[in-house]
């Protein structure tokens, strides 16, 4: 057991301080990279002002920088409050949460079950009476509901727990209405992960036995295995006016949101035609499942009321970027287009809920962008063009929508960065896993069963591995082109574009680059980057995320873009 990072006394004395003083101390500590005491101060502030969003924001900032090395109940309580915050990504707390789960004496019986060798061993070891206090702990429940926990041992634990719950429900002797908060939380976990974990044939049998039951326990258990939207009894229950508590929350995800999206889908305008065969296939692929599923996001602490400018998001998916940008720049007008009506509907629903009226969504094919007459100050197309049959044709269309002086934020797959993925794609091809939920679950099960040292298992380090639609995009996509820096140079040349820098780089990486290439302070020399990536092949494991503009327009940004750029909200290359 490692030492605690905080003494109860220190926390108690912090809790006497007035709010402004806590903020001042936090800013001071954080700016001096004293992250652990900064986190303590933030927790004290959260305890004092449990509903203050900015306190939770501070805690979320600090928690990403620390390693939780011990248990303290105040951390637990503070994190429970942070889980209720609406303007942060709860996922930041995942590692701290997992660590606290590990160190918390209350959760020892539950966490010990991670050591079970297999299903049978798990069944031998589990004792509902000792486990129940763990799974009824709000800290545990909120964690599995809100975090999208991306951790294989934890997934295994919950998958086995799910099987236990299903079996127990069948025998009818254990679960009661009091257990609903836990069952709903478990159900929400599997819903969020889109049932990525494999189910055994015996489970499939048991599920069919409860698929028509309409009591809340059965609905919650069924929700651990199936999306409830298509089930008539779930639809009926969801519309019950007296619904409250956890089951209401659960059914709002499973049913209400889905119904709303179905309604929205009917009214999405079509901006262009979709004729291309691959475009049609891709559209079909996303039609079943909006991608990527998201709930909250880090709302920037300040917004920028710059005058009106126009942004296009070509391939907006479920529109997290659109909504976040629309809220950050309330006067900017944002158009999102995508092939998938399901994904757009998800985005429309999310934009509506927060009042982002400055968004406009339409179904459209990037290949047909010339059918629209509008031009934009900024076009974002991230992780989209490399899924087209002819990315160059798409690129040409996107460039055609730029205003003079407009900028593009592009993200493309890197050949080097995706080596482990390429190996996985080979495995998928060899074993013939299909692009169906079953095929993807089987693939995941195969990866999970690999020994930890197997290089293929690296893929499980990626968060995308833990939900079905993200896993599909990660390794199963029907169309994928990967690029090298050489390819990037050629691509930019073919379209008469100038490279303005990579985005979203860690500070450490920038420092490394500058130390190697001190004569390129703006970090825009792609020859250097080519050597750099050879030396550090995982630099672009995510993607090449870069900014470019038409040649000769480097120094004459459009007025709209210049205003957005002046806010320094987007990280564009290196800001000197």
């Amino acid at each position, binding site marked *: 057991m490692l030492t605690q990072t905080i003494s109860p006394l220190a926390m108690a004395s912090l809790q006497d301080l007035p709010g402004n003083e806590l903020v001042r101390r936090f800013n001071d500590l954080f700016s001096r990279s004293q992250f652990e005491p900064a986190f303590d101060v933030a927790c004290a502030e959260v305890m004092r002002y449990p509903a203050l969003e900015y306190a939770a924001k501070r805690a979320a900032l600090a928690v990403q920088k620390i390693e939780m090395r011990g248990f303290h109940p105040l951390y637990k309580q503070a994190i429970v409050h942070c889980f209720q915050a609406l303007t942060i990504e709860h996922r930041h707390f995942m590692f701290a949460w997992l660590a606290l789960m590990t160190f918390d004496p209350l959760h020892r019986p539950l966490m010990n079950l991670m050591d079970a060798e297999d299903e049978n061993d798990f069944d031998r070891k589990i004792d509902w009476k000792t486990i129940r206090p763990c799974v009824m702990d709000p800290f545990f429940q909120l964690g599995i509901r809100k975090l999208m926990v991306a951790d294989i041992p934890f997934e295994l634990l919950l998958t086995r727990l799910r099987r236990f719950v299903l079996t127990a429900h069948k025998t009818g002797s254990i679960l009661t209405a009091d257990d609903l908060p836990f069952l709903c939380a478990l159900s929400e976990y599997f819903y969020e992960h889109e049932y990525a974990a494999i189910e055994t044939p015996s489970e499939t049998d048991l599920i069919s036995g409860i698929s028509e039951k309409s009591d809340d326990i059965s609905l919650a258990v069924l929700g651990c295995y199936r999306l409830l939207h298509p089930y008539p009894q779930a639809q009926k229950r969801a519309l019950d006016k007296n619904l409250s508590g956890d089951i209401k929350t659960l059914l709002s995800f499973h049913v209400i949101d889905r119904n709303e999206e179905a309604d929205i889908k009917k009214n999405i305008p079509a901006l262009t035609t979709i004729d291309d065969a691959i475009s049609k296939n891709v559209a079909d692929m996303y039609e079943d499942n909006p991608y990527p599923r998201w709930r909250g996001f880090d709302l*920037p602490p300040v917004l920028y009321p710059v005058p009106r400018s126009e942004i296009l998001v070509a391939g907006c998916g479920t529109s997290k970027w659109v909504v976040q940008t629309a809220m950050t720049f309330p006067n900017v007008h944002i158009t999102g287009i995508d092939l998938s009506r399901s994904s757009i509907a998800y985005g429309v629903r999310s934009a509506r809920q927060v009042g982002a009226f400055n968004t406009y969504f339409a179904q459209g094919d990037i290949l047909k962008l010339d059918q629209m007459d509008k031009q934009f100050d900024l076009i974002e197309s991230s992780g989209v063009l490399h899924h087209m049959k002819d990315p160059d044709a798409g690129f040409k269309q996107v460039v055609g929508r730029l205003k003079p002086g407009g900028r593009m934020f592009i993200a493309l797959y890197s050949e080097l960065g995706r080596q482990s993925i390429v190996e996985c794609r080979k495995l998928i091809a060899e074993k013939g896993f299909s692009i169906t939920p079953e095929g993807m679950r089987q693939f995941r099960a195969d990866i999970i069963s690999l020994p930890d040292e197997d290089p293929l298992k690296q893929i499980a380090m990626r968060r995308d591995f833990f939900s079905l639609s993200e896993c599909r995009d990660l390794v199963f996509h029907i169309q994928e082109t990967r690029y090298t820096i050489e390819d990037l140079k050629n691509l930019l040349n073919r379209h008469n574009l100038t490279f303005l820098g990579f985005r979203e780089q860690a500070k450490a990486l920038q420092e490394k680059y500058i130390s190697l290439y001190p004569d390129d302070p703006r970090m825009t020399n792609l020859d250097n980057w080519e050597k750099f990536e050879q030396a550090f092949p995982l630099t672009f494991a995510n993607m090449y995320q870069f900014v470019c503009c038409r040649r000769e327009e480097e120094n004459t940004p459009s007025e709209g873009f210049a205003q957005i750029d002046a806010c320094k909200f987007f990280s564009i290359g290196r800001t000197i």
Partner: protein
Amino acid sequence: MTYLNLSGQTPTQHMMDQDAHAKAEAGRLYDIAKGHIDREEYKTANPIIENILTLHPTHIGAMELKAISAYTFGDTETALYIAREIKKLQPLYPGVDILIGRILVKAEQYPEAVTTLEPALAKQPYDEGFSALSRAYFYLGQKPKAEESLRRAMAITPDKAEHIYMYLSYLYQVTETNDPHFARLHKLISESPTDMNSAYLHYALFKAFQDIGDYDRAFESLQVGAHAKRKAIHHQSGHLERWMDDIRTYFSADFFENQHIQGYDTEQPVFILGMPRSGTTLLEQILHAHPDISGIGEERRLSELITEFSSLPEYDGKPYPLRRSRSGAYLPPQAIGREYMHFMNKTGNSAKRIVSKSIAHRLWAGMSSLIFPGARYIHIHRDPMDMCLSCFATNFTGAAQGYTYDLAELGTHYKTHTRLIAHWNDVLPGRILNVRYEDIVKDTETQARRILGFLNLPWDDRCLEFYKAEKSVSTASVDQVRQPIYDRSVGRWKKYEKHLAPLIEALKE
């Protein structure tokens, strides 16, 4: 991306620097900061105070200045913390208990304020301390003690206009034309006081003339007082009314038809809408007496949250009108709801319905209806002549309600207000209950039953004996709500009818 510092302060490192040079420098800076504070130049003083505290973190004088500055800006939490730190460091520091007591009064913690101020003032009499004590007793409903404390303040500084005003307006009834207060007031007025003090003196004179039934001279004093007050607070004519019209046009019927904003799910909040002096306090007190309802009085939290943090994109070509902040801080509606409900539940003890009354609620109704899709609104309406006269006759705290100091302006404001309320009734159908002050006064039970029905709560007899409820009230109506309902303020304007031509003219369509 820069991280927001909510307090707007730059981080200063607290160094325990005991070096003599630093101390000398701190002493020099203290004199400068003190000068600024004495001249009420708080914004200039604040950074200097921070510098002193960086050099010398336990500089008692600087800590005191910081507490005074925080107190002046309404940050009673910080002020109280610092004052208590001073007491910890130097328990015998003169005046520290009085400072703590004054902050407690501002923080509306009256019983604690009394127990702090009484012994401290016995040791060290101080006029501002006594007037704070008087205020505390007054809001606690202990009028004789309030009067006595104020007398003691006036014994120390007999000419302080604010104290004379408080004394004559709230604590003392003039009965004779030769009451010595008349001479005192006339003498002080003749000494060319500042606009603010002139206002205090004339409002005091108005009350004194009214007490003896000399309505013409009362009104004459009132007009001079109102004029002085208007000048003192630099009221910008038409500003608020244009804002109200902007709000009305942004939150259009079309807006409400097309928005799908997700709010905070609760049925607890009840907002009282009305103009000042329309009976909002009375209504709140009647409701507060109900066991399932908690009235949290006049609070500014929602106003702060909405003007500081809310933002919506422009709609139909019109910019979002409610945001006033330049800090850039932002919260989506649901998050504002969460923060506000936390505040309400803490203040209102998690009652089934929590009633908040604030003159500003009428401005926020469009937004608060989105933040709280389950909130209910009660609009209280009163005869415009009575209400406007009552507004005109009130010297509101500070710069609030600046439109009430000119009759024509008041009439225009009333019409703008009426348009806004009619609009909320149109776009928020079923969510607003309209009640009339005169009906409540005439038949409280019928109206209370109607309101409770609207709030979906059972009847309770205690609503009729609201004046027995123990609770401090800190609005201009503090005196009225401690008595059973009376109707003598209905039709009061008739006494002043011949002076009210500009108002009557402005109220005409």
